[in-house]
């Protein structure tokens, strides 16, 4: 009976241009990446676009993966950076105040996540974008405020304020 190739073997084959190995890597990791993208994007269509973009970029950058971390960790970091930078560029385009005034009302997402049955997931999807991003990164993904601040290009105090606002809004919605 043929043994399944290890993740390391799949990565090496994909680095040589083997698309089927990359597809196997996609199948292994898409759930984790999509969960992150879905919660950060706040809507299914945007999340699916983002998930696709993560894997396309991963393919292009595979040559830079040197196996110092697990492939899943490398992919997660790539997804995280991409999701946050997308959010920043959208915020810039809408002239949102990202850095110093978390109390400013940001537009609510147009479409919540219809396939998520959990109340909390729905409530998270309905948060303003800045508060949602910090809540997801801090409370769901477990990142510290200093990491979030560095990643999102905001002050640590702003990250804390976003989290406070997110929790307060969620408490109201879930009451």
């Amino acid at each position, binding site marked *: 009976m043929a043994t399944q190739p290890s993740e390391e073997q799949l990565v090496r084959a994909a680095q040589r241009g083997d698309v089927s190995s990359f597809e196997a890597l996609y199948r292994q990791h898409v759930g984790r990446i999509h969960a992150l993208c879905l919660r950060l994007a706040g809507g299914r269509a945007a999340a699916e676009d983002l998930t696709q973009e993560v894997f*396309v970029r991963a393919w292009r950058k595979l040559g830079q993966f040197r196996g110092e971390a697990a492939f899943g960790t490398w992919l997660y970091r790539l997804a995280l950076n991409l999701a946050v930078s997308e959010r920043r560029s959208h915020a810039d385009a809408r002239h949102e105040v990202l850095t110093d005034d978390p109390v400013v009302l940001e537009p609510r997402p147009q479409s919540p996540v219809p396939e998520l049955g959990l109340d*909390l997931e729905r409530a998270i999807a309905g948060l303003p974008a800045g508060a949602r991003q910090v809540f997801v990164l801090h*409370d769901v993904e477990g990142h510290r405020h200093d990491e979030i601040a560095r990643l999102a*290009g905001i002050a640590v105090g702003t990250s804390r304020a976003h989290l406070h606002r997110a929790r307060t809004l969620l*408490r109201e919605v879930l009451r």
Partner: protein
Amino acid sequence: MMTCDDAGRWLDDLVDGDLGEALASEVRAHLDACAACRAEECRRRELVLEAASLPREIQPSGDLWAGIAARLSEPVGIVEARPVRRWTVWSGMAAAAVLLVAGTALVTAHLVRSRPRAVTARASSPAAIVPAAITSELNAPQVDLERAAGALRAALESRRGQLSPATLKVVDENLAIIDAAIDRLQAALREDPGNRALVTLLTATWERKIDLLQTASELARTS
């Protein structure tokens, strides 16, 4: 004695364990005396627990692979060994690199103009790519990228004879353009070392250089 408003301001930090002991004691003292704030603390702890226990994986509603696979043939990073496409590849890269420099120059000028300039020591050593003020945060990735680019450049130099003169010309021109962009960004960062947007641009430019070198090396290898 702390008020409810004061306590409410610190509840999240208390729940997250981010409060210093003295302040935490003050907040706890208020919670001991205030049932409403105690209930609020309890609800916040429940919310944090619930958020942390959400599923780590969610499958997309449809299979995204077809859309991804359709884009993998875009020749960036991993090059398809199809000679008919090479000129397209290099033309696209040349255009992208020109845009990169033009865009970088504009964005750099804008970013430097739009932020107050910090007083900094100028980095005189070539090794000091990143200003000292942000060295601890940025040095590792930038140095890694520079090292990777250096190794790829050496690999490409050893295979130059395998590329046609026309291809070599395009590669060298593009590398020069990207190097010029890197020089400009490093100069701008020395002027404004806290400018994270410049750091992001610099990292992206290094990555573009690495992509180009990888592509060129792969082309040389398969030629």
